[in-house]
């Protein structure tokens, strides 16, 4: 599904919290739909940070994130006429950007194997069951930068589901639809991603404590 064809619904309350009305946005959308380039620049200025941050978190690579931010806004330019206002513009644009990133990932190699397989990193990358190690507790000790870095270090399949669910607030049924996988697979990947993140964060803490 492309964002231009179907109006995506807001994912949940987190999306509503993150999509407050923006002063002047409605006028800019109407003007951009009429072909006003300055209005389109206004929309870019309003939304570039959110779209780029999404691309960067999903891809973990600055150059690719910039390329896909560019692609997302060019798609927006082509499709803005189809925006009907059934959902928040930022939600609609966000979904469009997610689709651009997913298309890119499929083109890069995901078509050769099913996405279900691609979402299943090798055993070496996976989280372990936790039967020991009471020495460290994460609560209250992780800053934003540390968490961002750990997310970057996640295997791509885990990172996708974690970013879409825990950071961006999509529900499992939406993620399953976007990634063409089962809802159960999305849930399972999310749990594994959180376990892997815990491993990464605890390893980082141990290294810090050892210095």
């Amino acid at each position, binding site marked *: 599904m492309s964002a231009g064809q179907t109006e995506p619904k807001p994912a949940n309350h987190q999306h509503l919290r993150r999509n407050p009305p923006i002063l002047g946005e409605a006028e800019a959308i109407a003007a951009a739909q009429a072909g006003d380039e300055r209005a389109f620049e206004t929309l870019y200025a309003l939304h570039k940070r959110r779209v780029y941050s999404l691309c960067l978190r999903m891809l973990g690579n600055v150059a690719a994130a910039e390329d896909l931010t560019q692609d997302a806004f060019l798609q927006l330019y082509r499709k803005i006429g189809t925006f009907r206002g059934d959902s928040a513009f930022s939600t609609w644009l966000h979904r469009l950007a997610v689709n651009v990133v997913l298309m890119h990932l499929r083109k890069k190699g995901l078509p050769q194997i099913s996405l279900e397989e691609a979402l299943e990193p090798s055993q070496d990358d996976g989280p372990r069951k936790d039967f020991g190690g009471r020495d460290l507790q994460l*609560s209250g000790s992780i800053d934003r930068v540390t968490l961002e870095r750990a997310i970057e270090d996640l295997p791509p399949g885990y990172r996708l589901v974690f970013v879409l669910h825990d950071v961006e607030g999509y529900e499992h049924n939406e993620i399953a639809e976007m990634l063409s996988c089962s809802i159960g697979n999305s849930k399972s990947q999310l749990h594994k991603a959180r376990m892997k993140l815990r491993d990464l964060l605890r390893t980082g803490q141990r290294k810090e404590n050892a210095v």
Partner: protein
Amino acid sequence: MTTRPNGRTTVGKAIMTCADFQERLPELFETKADLSADEHLKTCENCAALVRDLEYIAQQAKLLLPIHDPSPAVWENIKSAIRNDPDTKGGSSNPSVPRPAGR
């Protein structure tokens, strides 16, 4: 329910081990139930710490707001693509897409 040493709890005759509990954990998180009342967690500090950490990670992730900005080259390329391709006026085709220098 009976509590045994080493974090094992029994429900009827079945013993709940850490492995059993962690097997059920994804499902428990999805139900959004209050896990603090779970019998196994009351006696197993290891699994309790795991649950605290995973909840903490999910909470912190929700607080990650967009903070990164793309380089100015991104807008320059978008502008250039829009202006150089007359087919994009009115918006329905594929503008040629320049990439930032050095890629």
